[in-house]
C-alpha cells in the first residue's frame, strides 16, 4: 500500500475522468490544482515507478471495438499450484487480467480468474480451450461467466 499525500490525491481526482485533449494536458491539469507541470509529471512518474499507476494510456473499450463476448474464466487450481498456473495464464497474450481470489466452498471452488475477450462465441470457446491447454492438469475444473449486461462501469473514484 502506498500513501498518497493531498497533492497526489488532487492529481488523481483531476485526471480520473481522463486527461484533457489539449496539446499540453499535464500543464492543464497542474494549473487546475495549483502546481507546476513539471511537478505534476514528476508525481505521476513516481506513482508509475512505485506501481500505483500501472500505465497511462488510451484505454480501449473492448465492447465498442466489437468484442461482445467478454468471459470471466474461473479455474479451480490447488493452492500449491497457483503460482505456476497464474504465471502460465498471465503469459497468454489475449488474457487481459489474471488474478488469484479466495474460493468459497462449497459453492465457489474457483481460485484463478482470467478475463478473455472475443468477437464471437466460437472464438471465445477457442480462447477458453487455449487457457485450459496452458493449465493442463493444474485445472481441476472451470466455469466461464460471460457478461450479459454492463450495469455500471466507471473509472477509479476518489473523492
Amino acid at each position, binding site marked *: 500500500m502506498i500513501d498518497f499525500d493531498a497533492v497526489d490525491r488532487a492529481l488523481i481526482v483531476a485526471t480520473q475522468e481522463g486527461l484533457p485533449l489539449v496539446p499540453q494536458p499535464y500543464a492543464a491539469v497542474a494549473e487546475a490544482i495549483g502546481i507546476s507541470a513539471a511537478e505534476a509529471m514528476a508525481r505521476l512518474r513516481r506513482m508509475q515507478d512505485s506501481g500505483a499507476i500501472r500505465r497511462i494510456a488510451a484505454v*480501449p473499450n473492448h465492447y465498442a471495438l466489437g468484442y461482445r463476448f467478454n468471459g470471466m474464466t474461473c479455474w479451480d487450481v490447488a493452492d500449491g499450484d497457483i503460482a505456476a498456473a497464474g504465471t502460465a495464464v498471465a503469459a497468454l497474450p489475449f488474457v487481459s487480467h489474471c488474478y488469484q481470489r479466495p474460493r468459497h466452498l462449497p459453492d465457489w471452488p474457483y481460485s484463478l480468474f482470467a478475463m478473455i475477450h472475443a468477437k464471437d462465441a466460437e472464438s471465445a470457446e477457442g480462447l477458453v480451450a487455449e487457457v485450459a491447454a496452458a493449465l493442463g492438469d493444474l485445472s481441476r475444473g472451470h466455469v466461464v461467466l460471460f457478461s450479459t449486461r454492463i450495469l455500471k462501469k466507471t473509472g477509479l473514484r476518489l473523492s
Partner: protein
Amino acid sequence: MLVLDDIDRRLLDLYQRDLPLVARPFAAMAEAVGVGEDIVLARLARLSEAGVISRIGAVFRPHRCGHSTLAAMAVPAERLEEVAAVVSAYPQVNHNYQRDHTLNLWFVIAAADAAEVAAVMTEIKDRTGIAVLDLPLIEDFHIDLGFDIRWS
C-alpha cells in the same frame, strides 16, 4: 459503429499501453504515427466520443490506492433490476455486471479503506437480504493490462 482507419488503429495499438509522460504527449504520438498533433487530438476526441476509447489517463493498480474487492451475489431473476439498482447506486461501486451464472451479479467495491468496503458489503446484504460473496484479490499475475486487438 465508427469505422476505424489505419491512423485510429495505430493510435490504439501503440497507446493502449503507454502514453508518453512528456509535456506534449500528443505531439510525440503524432511523430510516431507520422501525422500532425492536431490530427492526433482530433482522432482521440472522435474515438472518445464514439466510446471506442473509454478514457485517456492513468490506470491504477488495484489495491494500491485504497482498498477494493470483487463481490458476487446470486439474485433471483425477478429481483435483478431492483438489486442491481441498489448496488449501482453506491458511489463505491465502479463496475457492476450481470453474468450468466447462478451468481449473476458481479461488482467491484472500492473505497479509501477496508472498513468502508466491508460496510458497503454489509449494507447491501442487509438491504437486499441476499448474501454477498467477498472475493478480494490475493495475487495479480498480470504485468501489462494492454490487450492484443485483432482488427480483422
